[in-house]
């Protein structure tokens, strides 16, 4: 009996009971669609996070004052460190050839006011290099000019939201604002950026780093962002930077953080989440399998006479087993394909509603969901099929 005849026979039998067949198809389809959609969600979350990191550049090396053993942990919790200074930043730029650009950063909070409008914002001290190193964009005006790092200047660049709040419906470029006790001229507005490294880059005021240190009365940098020439040099650059600063400070009191470590942690967490979602969705596939078994058992008992006839016509036990297994597998496979389609549509809908979430089912989940649905049919089809083969032909022919 050829495979084609086998499945042809099975398909004819299934078409004989459209409602019953349709319902068990639906069961499998829901299971597969659930796996596809839920894993797409998990994968979307992972890609979203990766995208967030990639937006600040994957060649980024972050140096924070303080010694921590664990990458990706809370920096600044190991004793009292020496200051991380602009001189350190300059030394790194001179002494480590892998470093392309350095962007020293100072952070604090300050009140910004324009006329009667006031707003508490994050104050960032930066340099001209910050624009490139942090992958920022300019919506209007320009970014901090390429000054000497230790020169102060009363200019400020506003984040998108800060600008909108302080200057509703107006272009702030050229206006004078007050930042704390300082009067500053707005020279530019950032393009919308959202959260970056835990700072809302839309609600920020950026001023030259030396100015910020004076305003906040700080001597140490908050962070030193370093752009490494090539991604492959990242680990070596980190080692050399940390060693160089240690030599300058007389002890190893800074920590180098690369995105890879943080990203790795996030990725493994979100992978686990996706896997868990897939597992939950698979339960519905198992339930669908029980549904198939039920339908097949009904089918076997309804078709007792037919099975008796097939035996009388010389169908072997193996052939009858295969015929009923083929029915179960056909059910689950068709249901699986249907589920892939429904899942795909659901994911498309999701992306249409939440364009920010790059929801896409991972290939392994699609393959696994479909294979699982086929396997479920084969597995849960065995019992009914065996029942069919074991029928006594004489009893079966008389419908007993």
């Amino acid at each position, binding site marked *: 009996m050829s495979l084609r005849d086998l499945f042809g026979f099975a398909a004819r039998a299934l078409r004989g009971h459209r409602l019953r067949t349709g319902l068990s198809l639906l069961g499998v389809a829901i299971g597969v669609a659930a796996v596809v959609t839920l894993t797409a969600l998990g994968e979307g979350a992972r890609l979203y996070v990766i995208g967030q990191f990639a937006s600040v550049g994957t060649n980024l090396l972050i140096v924070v004052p303080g010694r921590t053993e664990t990458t990706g942990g809370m920096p600044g919790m190991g004793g009292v460190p020496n200051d991380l200074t602009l001189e350190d930043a300059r030394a790194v730029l001179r002494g480590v050839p892998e470093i392309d650009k350095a962007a020293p950063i100072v952070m604090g909070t300050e009140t910004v006011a324009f006329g009667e409008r006031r707003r508490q914002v994050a104050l960032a001290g930066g340099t001209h290099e910050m624009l490139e190193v942090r992958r920022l964009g300019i919506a209007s005006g320009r970014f901090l000019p390429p000054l000497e790092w230790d020169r102060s200047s009363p200019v400020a660049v506003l984040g998108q939201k800060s600008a909108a709040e302080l200057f509703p419906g107006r272009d702030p470029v050229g206006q004078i604002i007050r930042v704390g006790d300082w009067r500053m001229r707005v020279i530019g507005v950032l393009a919308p950026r959202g959260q970056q490294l835990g700072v809302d880059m839309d609600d920020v005021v950026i001023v030259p780093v030396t100015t910020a240190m004076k305003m906040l009365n700080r001597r140490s940098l908050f962070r030193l962002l370093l752009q490494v020439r090539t991604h492959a040099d990242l680990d070596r650059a980190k080692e050399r930077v940390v060693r160089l600063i240690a030599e300058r400070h007389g002890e190893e009191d800074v920590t180098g953080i690369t995105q890879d470590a943080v990203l790795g942690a996030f990725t493994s967490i979100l992978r686990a989440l996706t896997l868990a979602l897939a597992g939950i969705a698979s339960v519905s596939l198992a339930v669908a399998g029980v549904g198939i078994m039920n339908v097949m058992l009904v089918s076997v008992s309804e078709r007792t006479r037919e099975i008796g006839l097939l035996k*009388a016509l*010389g169908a072997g036990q193996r*052939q009858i087993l295969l015929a009923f297994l083929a029915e179960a597998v056909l059910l689950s496979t068709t249901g699986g394909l249907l589920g892939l389609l429904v899942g795909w549509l659901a994911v498309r809908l999701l992306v249409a509603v939440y364009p920010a979430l790059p929801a896409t089912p991972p290939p392994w989940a699609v393959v696994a969901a479909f294979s699982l649905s086929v396997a479920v049919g084969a597995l849960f089809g065995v019992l009914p099929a065996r029942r069919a083969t074991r029928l006594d032909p004489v009893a079966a022919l008389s419908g007993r």
Partner: protein
Amino acid sequence: MIRLEGLSRTFDVGGEPVHALVDVSEAIAAGEHLAIMGPSGSGKSTLLHILGCLDRPDRGAYELLGRDVARLDEAELSLVRRHTIGFVFQFFHLVPRLTALENVELPMVFAGIPAGERRERAMGRLRDVGLEPRASHRPDQLSGGERQRVAMARATVLDPKLLLADEPTGNLDTTSGRHVLEILERMNASGLTLIVVTHDPAVARRARRILVLKDGRVVHRGDGAHIHEAVEILSAAENGT
């Protein structure tokens, strides 16, 4: 062709043994036309099932074409049923979702014959029973007589040596019944061994040889020309004397 030696079959019905066949010995030659008669419960159906390899005797030997089929395993038996035996049933047993043509094709599907050849042979058999124009009809679109003719086409499509008919006219009116019998006899005339189980004397009398069973034993052997003897014994048996 067929040799039965001391064949016995006992069923267990509600804890009580029922002797369906007791020590039946018989020889049936190739090309014979044999009728098996008997009241209900006489064991005639059991005998037919054993002859058709759907059931096995508890004791005794059943030799078919020189093979002791009572000793064969299930896989071998299904091959014997497929290639050596054809069945015609009282209730036709057509698969309702398949067309007449597909029903006739069914044994060939399991025999692994390619679709093209299958179609051709099935069409030929339908032509033989005069149903070629009805090939694409489903069983519920056919009359009883037509259904039985489809069943006969199906039973003979793999060229069996032995055709077993269980009350083939039991569900038909006289005209279609006669038509069915004529086809069976034509098949028999072309060399097919025909065994018909019936309680209808009009059917049995057309057989060359008649066996009458009662309580699992052969109580009479006669021929079609002397059907009245068989009928007398049969009615005596049915009246319990």
